[in-house]
């Protein structure tokens, strides 16, 4: 048997069917329901979204927390990856640690943070007895940002380790021989070459943060005002059930994430073409 031209399509068909049934069909069905409600003119969820600042705030919170956790994670992760490139013997241990951090999200992370920084948390109490009050509340946006950083920073380090390592070697030696110091090298050579990878990794980190449901839900229940929690609470909640608004928020999230991921891929590809 030789693989024909149709073979890859036949081999991919079961997977495509599973994705179609499990992901695209329910998504299209819900979005279609929302659109037809609005086109018929009865009970369009857009009115609920605009009338209630609460849901617009959830959109804003999601963008704010995803963007800030991404930017901080990129900065720390990139610097850590530079340190790792200079110390090959630390790479293995660091990658194990970062892997644990990146996967320690959701319920286990909420448990740990409540233990350390909750109202009765040992670190919060310990610092308070030393006269230092922590400037954030675990259930507010500050606490949420800390929680997201706990998995975003290790993830950024893991994803940037390889691109930073690729800069290693000849390029750096050449710059050093020509008298460039670290700051000049990174500003003029290192960062411009890394930029496409930073943009791609940044888009995935943004999507990872925006999609996070377990962490905000485990930290503050349905009162966490981010999109992922609102989308679920509007359907599974008994009191404020509004499936139409939930579908609209899911569509908004989809549009936002497609824009970020596709935009980042496009810009990264352009930049790589300019470099080569």
């Amino acid at each position, binding site marked *: *048997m*030789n*693989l024909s031209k149709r*073979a*890859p399509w036949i*081999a*991919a068909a079961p*997977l495509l069917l*599973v*994705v179609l049934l*499990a*992901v695209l*069909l329910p*998504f299209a*069905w819900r979005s279609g329901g929302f659109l037809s409600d609005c086109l018929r003119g009865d009970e369009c969820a857009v009115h609920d979204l605009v009338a209630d600042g609460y849901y617009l705030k959830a959109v804003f919170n999601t963008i704010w927390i995803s963007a800030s956790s991404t930017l901080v994670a990129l*900065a*720390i*992760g990139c*610097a*850590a990856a*530079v*340190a790792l*490139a*200079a110390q090959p013997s*630390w790479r293995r241990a*660091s990658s194990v*640690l*970062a892997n*644990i*951090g*990146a996967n320690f999200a*959701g*319920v*286990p*992370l909420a*448990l*740990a943070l409540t*233990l*350390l920084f909750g109202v009765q948390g*040992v670190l919060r109490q*310990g610092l308070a007895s030393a006269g230092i009050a922590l400037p954030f509340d675990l259930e507010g946006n500050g606490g949420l940002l800390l929680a997201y*950083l*706990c998995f975003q920073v290790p993830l950024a380090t893991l994803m940037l380790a390889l691109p930073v390592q690729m800069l*290693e070697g000849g390029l750096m*030696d050449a710059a*050093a021989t020509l008298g460039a*110091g670290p*700051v000049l090298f990174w500003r003029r050579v290192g960062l411009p070459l890394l930029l496409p990878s930073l943009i791609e990794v940044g888009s995935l980190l943004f*999507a990872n943060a925006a*999609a996070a449901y*377990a962490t905000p839900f*485990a930290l503050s229940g349905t009162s966490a005002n981010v999109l*992922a929690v609102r*989308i*679920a609470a509007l359907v599974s909640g008994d009191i404020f059930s509004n499936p139409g608004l*939930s579908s609209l928020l*899911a569509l908004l*999230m*989809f549009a936002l994430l497609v824009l970020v*991921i596709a935009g980042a891929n496009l810009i990264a590809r352009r930049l790589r073409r300019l470099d080569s």
Partner: protein
Amino acid sequence: MKRIGLPWSRLALALVALLAVLPPVAVLLYAFSTRWDRSLLPEGATWAWLVEVARTPRVQSAVVQTLVLSLASATLTLLVGGTATIVARLTSPRVTALLDTLSLLPYAIPPVVIAIGALELFVGRWGAWLDLRVVYVVVAAPLLFPLLHKTLGAAMRQLDVAPLMEAAHTLGATDGFLLRRVLLPLLAPALVACLLLCWVTAAMEFAIANLLLGGSIEMLQPLMNGMRGVNGHLSAALVVLSFAVITAIGLMVEGLMAWNSRRNS
């Protein structure tokens, strides 16, 4: 190389280590201590929480349900996703590009949206005809596919299959023969690693387990969350047990991939 490193990069590395290590260590200490609320350090080392959690029938049944359902989903992903990725990488850059795009889909349509869609359509509308377990297994599979596609893709790139195919064709072997007798045996460790990775990921997934199955089938992560409110030590003990298993499986995956690349190089 050292001359190029920025002075504060080591500080950043220390910060990464702190953020990654502090939460797991806190949970570990809490799981092994009698109480930890009076001072900065926990008091009274004990195995009691771990023993109690392992003996609780509710935990045992959640562990079994989780392991069975997540293994089923991981197997489905390996069968449909593995076939698609291997054949596409061998023969068609176009289908490979489609699969690359497909592996970005769970980033654009996150698990919570998938779970709510499945809840409304497959449980709310068609719940009378569909088995909830089957729905869970199928719905979780697309979330695992990116992991499989990436891991298997890396293993195949390392194998450099193009010259192998050329040699096989020159010697008169068919693609089917090459696949059965050469590629699949060479890729076997990578395939096992993919299965283990998908299994662990599915077992630790929260959104679908909580929203789709919540109320009818109790899974590990929602149980952990529920236990937090009753007894934090027990919940911490459950987290420690699950992460011990995950770390063991992670080490197996790493060992398998390392052995695979040594064997194939």
